[in-house]
């Protein structure tokens, strides 16, 4: 589903050059639930961003669902982000001036000639039901708790029924009870067929996934299958 070959990512500023990722080779199969761990600054977010087509690698090849995106231009990248990938951020990234329902609807707005207004709203409502937030649809983000915000973000990630869900520390800003709730939603989505890659600092969360990839200083230092879950 996701295939990374010889990935390298260098951040250049006028003064310093950071090698954030070095020679990453990673193949993630359809239906897998993979967690990525490593110390702060080791390149986890960078790796996830490359998988989510939110940034371009300095070298190497990215394949998403069999499509090699290296030569892809803005339009094709946007289509893939919109249709195949759902992204969940540590800091939620909700638009504060829009209601919960309007936030969740956004990915559908960028879909060509698709669903009408009412059917988009119906899909958004269903997504919110899946994350248990149907009673907060007309609230605004700043009227919600952190856990509720993250559930809105998950609803937004899944509303377009993408085959891949990428989550960057989805529980990082939440207490453990909330974190567990989010985790069980992700597990349910995975059970329903989504391929999930999740960055986490939390061993107990990682243990609930199929496969654990460890990064250190931009390099992959471990890739283990957690048999108990697979």
């Amino acid at each position, binding site marked *: 589903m996701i295939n990374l070959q010889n990935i390298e990512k260098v951040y250049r500023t006028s003064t310093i050059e950071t090698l954030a990722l070095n020679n990453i080779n990673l193949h993630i199969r359809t239906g897998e639930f993979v967690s990525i761990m490593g110390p702060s600054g080791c390149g986890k977010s960078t790796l996830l961003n490359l998988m989510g087509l*939110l*940034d*371009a690698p300095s070298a190497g090849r990215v394949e998403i669902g069999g499509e090699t995106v290296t030569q892809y231009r803005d339009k094709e990248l946007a289509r893939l*982000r919109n*249709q195949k990938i759902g992204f969940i951020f540590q800091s939620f*990234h909700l638009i504060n001036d*829009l209601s919960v329902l309007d936030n969740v*609807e956004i990915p559908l707005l960028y879909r060509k000639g698709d669903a009408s207004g009412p059917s988009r709203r119906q899909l958004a409502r269903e997504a919110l039901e899946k994350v248990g937030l149907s009673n907060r649809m007309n609230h605004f983000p700043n009227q919600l708790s952190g856990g509720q915000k993250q559930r809105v973000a998950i609803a937004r990630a899944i509303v377009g029924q993408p085959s891949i869900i990428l989550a960057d520390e989805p529980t990082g800003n939440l207490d453990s009870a909330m974190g567990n709730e989010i985790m069980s939603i992700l597990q349910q989505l995975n059970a329903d067929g989504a391929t999930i890659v999740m960055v986490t600092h939390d061993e107990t969360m990682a243990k609930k996934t199929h496969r654990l990839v460890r990064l250190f200083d931009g390099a992959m230092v471990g890739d283990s299958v957690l048999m108990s879950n697979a």
Partner: protein
Amino acid sequence: MIRHLFKLIWNKKKAHTLLIIEIWASFLVLFGLSSLIVFNVSNYNQPLGFTYENVWAIDLRNNQDTVAVTAKMQTIMQRIRSYAEVESASRMSSNYPFSASTMNNNATHDKATAMAYLFVADGDFAKTLQMPLTAGRWYTPADSIGKFRPVVINQLAKDELFGNEDPLGKVITSGDGQYKVMGVVETFKSKGEFQGDKPTIFEQLNENAPWDKTVLIRVKPGTDAVFEAKLVKDITSMAPEWGAEVTYLTDSRQNQHNLALVPVTIFLIICGFLLINVALGLFGILNVSIARRRGEIGLRRALGATESSISWHFVGEMWVLATFAVVLGLILAGQFPLMNVFDLDTGVYLKAILISVVVVYAIVTLCAVYPSRQAATVQPAVALHEE
């Protein structure tokens, strides 16, 4: 998508108030500016109604000499007409075309009245100034024996006094006298191209009166100052105490133009500055407000927005805001034609409104496209990272 835009704008209405005011003010400045330009252009486009090249005005003054003024004047006219260099000559009141002096009078016909420019001129006036007539004919000396003295009017005077009625042969009242309309000329912009046409009446000159001693002459092309000197010398030898001052109509036209152009130029410069200010101000505000939303732009692109849909999003938002501002502006601008402030044609205001609407949308579009384009070319990860 439009619904989405409206919601976003509605929910941010407080933040947008400043922008709307900014666009509203820009619109009003543009409206004032384009009204003036449209007004001047439409005036300029009206035909002058006569030709002035090779026409000279000779201003005659009898000074202390009160003996046989009319006889001397008639002799001088005869002499002037006899030169080979003179194609045509006409005696008239002192307010010759492009001169600084004006005469006007209230004219009435039935219940209609018009404040009209008044020119007193003899039968050769139209010929000397090559004025085309649209109806009737110019009066001749033979017309002076009728019950009413003859006049020619311009189209505007005809419209105001007669409406759709045929004016030929009808009588108008002007001052103490009554006059019969002999002909109609199209326009007569005696103050130059920049001034709009005004209702105008040409009244037959009384050749036996001692006043109205300005002579217009049309000279052959190439006639120069040598002839001018000779002319003045001849006139003063016929009437030694008199003064004669020759003005070329091309020169007095230039003076009138300079007078008309000074305020227009100053206004254009001020408006140009205002426009630049307004455009820069708008650009600044939009740039900041869009830059502040880089995170949102990154997010939208992460969710599948293309670069161009980001640009359209912001252009759409700004168009909605501009529409609010323009509607508010129109309520104000609409008062000008409705209340007839400044006595301009409604058409002038409508054109001005159209121009300012187009320009406002153009500025707003440019001001939205540029920063949103720039923000959208940043990788989504980078934009989100910055937030």
